[in-house]
């Protein structure tokens, strides 16, 4: 339908109705397609021919008004609740009377389990590619946190489990609890805000993000991209304990440590004071034992050294003693030998002297005759009547010469 403008000289001017109709015509030519969003503000009234609702983008909150003929909507028997994710098949429409733009829905499909799983798998792959789940990113938990942050539902059994476990293990622990919605369309943003607030609080060294078990849909906020990225970006280590053992929300993968239950998470973030006491006692015992052992070892070494020293000294002493004995022997034998040699020489000389003794000649019967001129060797020196002295082996006598034989 052609919209004709009025002409004021050069200027073309359209009426409001004409303009609206023109845009509506143009919009009506746009294609019919599928749109994904969360159903909010669902308004159904028996008097109205259509059902109205708003489709909301879960990521950034962008809104799209939508409507559907009531008969068709009722025929789908969807029982949609606020915040539920759906796929809507429809085309854009401008209600010309009010320039009211909306999506005219022809069909609505609940975003089913399969679709959720597919979406989760896609998100998981994207986040993994971004490196959010990398082992290298995992930080060790502090052994003695100054303060423990807990992000949990406001009346959750999970909260009670965490708090009682922390109190029983480490009564002195300082705990900061941030309560938030943990399910429904507003939960993700609430969790992110609570997580940031707790991590930014002074002295908080570790955060426990926890929620008890629930249906697949109940746990969905913990796989929300915003929550997962907030966990990965948290300034302190995060322990995630969401749902039961078999559930693996994506925040578990991004957390530094995953715990199977809230109680397990509490055990991870604070040490057991009784166990610490036992450890200390054990360490003290082993320290004492080590000390004793070291002492005993040193004592034995000293004892061995003492024995070796004594043996060495004894050996040295024995050697010295033997050397001295030898020297003593030689000392004694030296002069003795000399003496014997001398004695032999002297005795030899003595023996020779003995054979030469004039007395030994006299003993054989010879006599020495002395006259005025000394020893008489020849009768020539004598005359008859001369007095002579005769020396014998024993004694001697005087005599006179009676005759001389020549």
């Amino acid at each position, binding site marked *: 339908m052609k919209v004709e403008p009025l002409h004021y000289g050069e200027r073309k001017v359209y009426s409001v109705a004409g303009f609206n109709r023109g845009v509506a015509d143009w919009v009506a030519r746009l294609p019919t397609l599928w749109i994904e969003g969360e159903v909010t503000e669902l308004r159904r009234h028996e008097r109205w021919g259509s059902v109205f609702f708003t489709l909301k983008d879960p990521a950034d909150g962008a809104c799209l008004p939508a409507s559907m003929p009531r008969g068709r909507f009722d025929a789908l028997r969807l029982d949609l609740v606020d915040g539920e994710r759906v796929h809507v098949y429809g085309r854009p429409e401008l209600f010309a009377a009010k320039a009211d733009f909306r999506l005219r829905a022809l069909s609505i499909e609940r975003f089913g389990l399969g679709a959720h799983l597919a979406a989760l798998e896609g998100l998981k792959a994207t986040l993994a590619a971004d490196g959010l789940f990398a082992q290298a990113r995992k930080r060790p938990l502090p052994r003695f946190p100054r303060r423990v942050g807990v992000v949990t539902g406001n009346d959750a059994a999970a909260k009670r489990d965490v708090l009682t476990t922390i109190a029983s293990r480490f009564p002195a622990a300082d705990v900061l609890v941030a309560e938030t919605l943990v399910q429904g369309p507003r939960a993700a943003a609430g969790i992110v805000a609570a997580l940031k607030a707790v991590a930014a609080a002074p002295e908080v060294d570790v955060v426990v993000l926890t929620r008890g078990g629930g249906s697949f849909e109940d746990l969905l906020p913990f796989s929300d991209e915003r929550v997962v990225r907030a966990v990965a970006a948290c300034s302190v280590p995060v322990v995630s304990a969401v749902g039961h053992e078999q559930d693996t929300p994506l925040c578990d993968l991004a957390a530094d440590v995953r715990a199977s239950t809230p109680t397990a998470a509490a055990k991870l973030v604070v040490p057991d004071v009784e166990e610490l006491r036992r450890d200390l006692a054990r360490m003290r015992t082993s320290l004492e034992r080590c000390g004793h052992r070291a002492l005993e070892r040193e004592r034995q070494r000293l004892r061995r050294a*003492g*024995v070796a020293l*004594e043996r060495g*000294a*004894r050996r040295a*002493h024995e050697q*010295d*003693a033997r050397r*001295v*004995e030898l020297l*003593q022997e030689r*000392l*004694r034998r030296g*002069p*003795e030998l000399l*003496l014997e040699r*001398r*004695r032999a*020489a*002297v005795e030899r*000389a*003595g023996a*020779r*002297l003995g054979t*030469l*003794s*004039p007395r030994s000649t006299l003993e054989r019967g010879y006599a*020495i005759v002395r006259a005025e001129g*000394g*020893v008489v060797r020849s009768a020539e020196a004598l005359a008859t009547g001369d007095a002579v002295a005769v020396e014998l082996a024993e004694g001697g006598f005087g005599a006179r010469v009676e005759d001389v034989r020549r």
Partner: protein
Amino acid sequence: MSEPTFEEAQRELEAIVERLERGQAPLDEAIALWERGDELLRLCLARLDAAQGRIEELAQRAETAAPFPDPPAPA
């Protein structure tokens, strides 16, 4: 005349013996030499005996005294 040393006495004794053995000394001198030799012989033997005694005395003393005292027993 002072006492000759053992060596002097021994040398003189040897000289006297040699001289007597050559038989050239006159009898009186030979007797005097012999007497001197006898005296020297006694002197030498006495010196040797004295030295022997001294050595034995020293050896006795060395044997009774241990060269080192025993090391003290460890505590």
